[in-house]
């Protein structure tokens, strides 16, 4: 299986670079999201990380996360 490499820089003043090994399907998913959200790959992955950290922090603080459908029915999001 071919690997796809992606470089990420951190936004802080001292930037660091890492290389990710992704499957073609994962890379396709990134590219699709980048197009949909009009973000660069770096910006998208930074956004993913931010979101993940916020969710983790709120779960750790005892909060719950719900999805709400059009009929206002709520389902709790269970995070592994």
């Amino acid at each position, binding site marked *: 299986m071919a690997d796809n490499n992606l470089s990420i820089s951190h*936004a802080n*003043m001292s930037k660091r670079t890492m290389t990710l090994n992704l499957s073609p399907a994962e890379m396709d998913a990134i590219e699709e999201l980048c197009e*949909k*959200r*009009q*973000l*660069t790959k*770096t*910006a*998208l992955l*930074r*956004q993913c*990380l*931010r*979101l993940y*950290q*916020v969710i*983790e*922090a*709120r779960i*750790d*603080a005892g909060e719950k996360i719900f999805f709400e459908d059009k009929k206002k029915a709520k389902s709790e999001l269970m995070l592994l």
Partner: protein
Amino acid sequence: MRPSLPIEVFAVGERKLVAGTLFFGIAEQNLEHYEQKWLPELLKRRREASKLRKAGHEIAVVEDAHWDWAKKMLREHRAPLGFRSCALEVAEETEGLMQVELATHRSRANKNLNLAYVDYISIAPWNRPWPGEPQHFKGIGSILLREAIRASMDEGFRGRIGLHALPGAVTWYHDKLKMKAFGADPDYQGLHYFEFTEEQSKRFIDEK
């Protein structure tokens, strides 16, 4: 040491620009200034407001006196990537505070696109119009909003920002800044929601 940017603020009494500093992150000393200097004045003004209004003064309601900045910073400490806060200081006094949320908000003007959400923005009470008390500095709110736009640009959101306005600030966002208005938000205490689109943000930054 906190990262910072040198800025200039218009001092009303001296009628000139003076040096200030925009610090990234709200430090303990800023929270102390809020508790010990801002809050007593905000509460005093809140008590005086109805009397002054009855006397014919047009004054904005003091609506942010209940904001617990220490609590707001706690959530930032728990998830620092999701927030960008800053404190504007002049001569080591805190003149403005802002916390921007970067993780969970999407634009209503451009569906699917992220924006920087200005969760809280506040200026020191002595920088707000009040009968018989000249403002110390002007333009603090605009400086902070420009920083929110910069945060949006840094994160690839192209300057898009959004916010819910307290009732007393609606006129400023709507008439002065001409932000795109989305009306009262039933899901957010009925507060009016505003956005700066990419183009509006560029214009606002260039106006400086």
